């Protein structure tokens, strides 16, 4: 979706109200990739936009030249450097146009398990969700199944997104060493990495797990009670 910030019907204040504090993606060069920037302010004559770029810091964009993309990332799991998050849209989008708290929900089921997991984790992890790593949500990069298990077993992560729908997390229960496998935001079973076996706990989603294993060639079997 594209927008024209030079629409004469939209005032400077209106633009700032709709866009300031939100994240959009901008093509910095005509043939370059879309890069996420946080919009800070509009110049009074609406010719320039002050933005914050993750690596370049504060930059001034000529709004008319560049290609703006305000598409939200798809709903589902995505990996960041700090962990895995689940992204969902809110249908409240009257004023805020880009990605921000009003338009996107980021959730992390293991956040409530942090006390239980803290004994196992060697490194401290960011506990609050933020929009610093939203670029990863658009990229949608997922490690292989075995690589994900390794990351969890070495306590480099609390959770890893395996696909848009499936995630693998550490167990909150100290006496169960298996990993928890999630479909969407629902825990659906356990992964026993010694036996290479997924034990389905929620029969509603066993077909989804079959499909996931088949499509990703995950080296494991599925056991239905």
């Amino acid at each position, binding site marked *: 979706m594209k927008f024209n910030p030079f629409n004469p019907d939209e005032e400077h204040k209106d633009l700032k109200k709709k866009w300031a504090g939100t994240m959009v993606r901008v093509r910095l060069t005509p043939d370059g990739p879309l890069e996420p920037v946080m919009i800070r302010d509009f110049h009074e004559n609406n010719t320039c936009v002050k933005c914050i770029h993750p690596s370049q810091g504060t930059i001034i964009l000529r709004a008319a030249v560049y290609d703006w993309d305000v*598409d939200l990332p798809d709903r589902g799991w995505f990996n960041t450097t700090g962990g895995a998050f689940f992204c969902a849209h809110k249908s409240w989008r*009257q004023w805020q146009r880009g990605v921000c708290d009003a338009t996107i929900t980021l959730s992390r089921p293991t956040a409530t398990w942090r006390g239980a997991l803290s004994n196992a984790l060697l490194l401290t992890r960011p506990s609050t969700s933020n929009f610093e790593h939203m670029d990863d949500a658009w990229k949608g990069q997922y490690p292989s199944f075995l690589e994900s298990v390794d990351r969890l077993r070495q306590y480099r992560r609390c959770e890893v997104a395996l696909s848009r729908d499936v995630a693998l997390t550490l167990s909150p229960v100290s006496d169960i060493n298996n990993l928890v496998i999630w479909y969407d935001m629902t825990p659906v079973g356990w992964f026993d990495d010694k036996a290479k076996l997924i034990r389905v706990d929620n029969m509603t989603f066993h077909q989804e797990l079959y499909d996931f294993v088949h499509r990703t060639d995950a080296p494991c079997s599925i056991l239905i009670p």
Partner: protein
Amino acid sequence: MLNFDSLKDDLSPQLSRLSYPMYTLGLTAARTLGPVTPTAYFDDSQNPTFGIEIEAEGIDEGKEWEGIKGIWSQKEDGSLRNHGREFVTMPLQFQHLPLAFDILRKYAPEAQFSHRCSTHVHVDVRHLTRSQIVTLIVLYALTEPLLFAFAGRARQRSNFCVGLEYTNDLNAMLSTAIAGKYAHEDLHKYAALNIIPTYLSSGENPLYGTFEFRHMYGTLHHASLMDWCGIINRLRHAAVEIDLPWVINKTRFLNIDSSYLHLIEKVFQEYTGVFWNYVKINNLPRLLERHVSRVKQSILHHDFSRKMLESAPTPGSQYLKGLKRLYPNVFKRIASSKKGTMEQGEQFFPTVGMVTVAHEQIFNDMLQNQALQVHSQFILSDSTFSEPEEFADGEDL
């Protein structure tokens, strides 16, 4: 002022199909009635009323509005540009919609439709029970990708028409529908299926008792509008025709048996073919699979099922009534067994939890009946058994 006499010849083929003298009503409404309460005329649970909102730009300034008054009302809309107006019908039944669209098309031929314009269709759900409303929401959630395929990708990514595919709104919608009242702040009017007009009134928007489908782009193209309204009409009728337990069971196994086409044909019937202009049948599993999983998560794992079982009157009570009518003896047995455990003064009330018990007993009865039938057939065949001719002479074997 629109000249209705000029419409008479153009619209005569459509008028011949109308069951209600809409043309006469249009004339009288336009000339005399003004704002009326037409639900008194059209109150029919089998034939729900529709309310259509069409946003258009480029409307001539200073145009007289008397010509469409009574059928269409018009107002300014702040989200539109270039002299945009929003046209809203009075409540109309499905068979009257073609005439209403033709009137507006003839009245505003200069109408332009940009990406800011859309068409919203309200459908009356006041006659539906709570279980039927839940069924409607679940059927919609299962088939939402098809509706967006019809409306186009631009609408799918619109800020003002957010689909269930991207949000967590389905849980909130189901909770509200089960409770029968607005109890969830997550609901918002910019959802693609906006159920707020049934549950919450605000200053500008009273309780309409409708569900609003916001998917459709702005247009006055006759076939597109009628196809869209027909699809919504079928969805609403399917919620009445199909039992909620069947829908839940179908959802549970839909990704396993991949019977997506069966579901779509059962819901949309004669309108199923409309979707094949936009979707390839081979792509149905890819299109619907994730949606079905989402719906499963909401209706099977969420506390939806528990609430459904506890709520009274239960959504499955219609199903129970049907069972009770078909198998009265089974329910007499259940009631008599239940009465043994009831306290004095407590009344027997069938609950959805009894469906399982009833199913078991009905199934056992059927087995017994089948056994009896088989036995009677055997006896019948035994009594009428005649020896083959070769043995008739009593030859010893």
